[in-house]
């Protein structure tokens, strides 16, 4: 049996249940009933569903009827991209940054087989989309511009408002993947200028198997899952009511709590960065400027070692971190995000703090990381001295 990680530093992958979410989940588990039926039990279920929808809509500045419950962020992103394309008439072009999550990239690329054209735009070394490049890509037949609120691997916050203005100038819509930012940074449909927004339950201290898509009235969708009339005919299938009730408890609670935690988490990130500076040949990814990045996330590459090997050594010491891109961890392909940034892809580590992370967590990592790195480099029989001499310059 594997030991449970003592130091969990992978909040960007998934989060534990918020106590209020857990209470809501347990309570709703006993409230079985189909919200689409007409008897008392069903009406109580409908009430819980409606109340949950309202709370989540308020949390992101949406109208309740714009919010579609899904099984998670991946399904919401698929519904947004594919559903929009299915309803499209003349507009047959999409703009997708190369660093989007694969749940946005994959359905967009799949549309090329159906006569859609997809322009993938690049990013700078910090992982940020250049609005000028975006402007050059958007056309009068562009249906959709996609832009994540913040990148999932390196934490870089994207120029979403500029992207919205560019999209709207051409009559296109903006899809914002906010899975990493809902209940972490301020997320408001109007402020972002988003026409569609994707959110995930399990990344915001809610349960897995929950998420939602916000689709404003401008965004006409055809469903991807069909078979009934639920969710205003935009997503068929019985709603995951306990999960939804829990997500609807977690998100508003986190929206209220997060601002007070931001400086403390940024302090932990700064503490980690200071410690990393003492390890030779570590390259930090993303925007070095705190306002341009997620406060709780630090990504870096340790040169000359294999990321997975480092993960295993850290895991043996009870520390859970992530390497590269989780969606491609089973393949030999390097992280598409780091590759698009022109960043070193090997030896990549992503550290992301839970809301209650402490300095002791950071210190534990900084205690274990340097000897683990040294061991792996020794195994690679690397003469770091010679490399450093070569890198010192004239």
């Amino acid at each position, binding site marked *: 049996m594997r030991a449970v990680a003592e130091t969990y530093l992978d909040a960007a992958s998934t989060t534990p249940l918020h106590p209020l979410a857990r209470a809501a989940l347990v309570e709703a588990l006993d409230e079985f009933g189909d919200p689409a039926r007409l008897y008392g039990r069903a009406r109580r279920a409908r009430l819980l569903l409606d109340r949950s929808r309202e709370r989540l809509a308020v949390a992101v500045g949406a109208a309740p009827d714009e919010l579609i419950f899904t099984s998670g962020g991946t399904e919401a992103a698929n519904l947004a991209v594919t559903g929009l394309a299915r309803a499209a008439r003349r507009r047959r072009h999409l703009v997708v940054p190369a660093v989007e999550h694969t749940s946005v990239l994959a359905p967009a690329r799949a549309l090329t087989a159906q006569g859609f054209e997809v322009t993938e735009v690049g990013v700078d070394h910090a992982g940020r989309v250049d609005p000028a490049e975006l402007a050059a890509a958007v056309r009068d037949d562009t249906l959709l511009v996609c832009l994540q609120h913040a990148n999932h691997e390196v934490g870089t916050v994207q120029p979403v408002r500029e992207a919205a203005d560019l999209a709207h100038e051409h009559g296109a819509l903006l899809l914002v993947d906010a899975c990493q930012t809902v209940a972490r940074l301020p997320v408001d449909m109007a402020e972002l200028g988003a026409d569609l927004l994707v959110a995930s339950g399990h990344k915001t201290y809610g349960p897995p198997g929950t998420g939602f898509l916000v689709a404003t009235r401008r965004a006409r969708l055809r469903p991807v899952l069909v078979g009934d009339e639920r969710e205003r005919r935009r997503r068929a299938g019985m709603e995951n009511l306990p999960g939804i009730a829990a997500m609807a408890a977690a998100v508003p609670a986190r929206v209220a709590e997060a601002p007070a935690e931001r400086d403390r988490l940024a302090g932990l990130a700064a503490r980690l960065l200071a410690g990393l500076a003492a390890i030779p040949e570590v390259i930090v990814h993303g925007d070095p400027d705190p306002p341009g990045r997620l406060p709780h996330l630090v990504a870096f590459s340790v040169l000359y070692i294999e990321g997975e090997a480092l993960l295993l050594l850290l895991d043996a010491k009870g520390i859970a971190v992530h390497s590269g891109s989780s969606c491609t961890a089973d393949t*030999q392909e390097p992280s598409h995000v780091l590759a698009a940034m022109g960043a*070193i892809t*090997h030896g990549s580590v992503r550290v992301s703090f839970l809301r209650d992370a402490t300095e002791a967590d950071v210190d534990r990592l900084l205690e274990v990381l340097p000897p683990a790195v040294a061991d792996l480099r020794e195994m690679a029989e690397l003469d770091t001295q010679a490399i450093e001499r070569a*890198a010192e310059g*004239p």
Partner: protein
Amino acid sequence: MTATVATVDCLGLACPIPVVRLAKAVASVEVGGMVELLADDPGAKVDIPVWCRLKDQQLVAQHDRPEGGWIFQVRRTH
């Protein structure tokens, strides 16, 4: 000018080995000397040019190999 040439064959080897061996080879040639690296790991395709940029070494050329993979020519600049 006759530059020292070192050839490093990393075909079939996964990252970070190509980068490690490139770094060692560059350190082993004279300044101005050339290292030719063969690799077919997709990570190497990304990481070799990035390493050259980060370490201020010159990536002179990068060719596809007909048999698969790539040839990287790197000049030690300092």
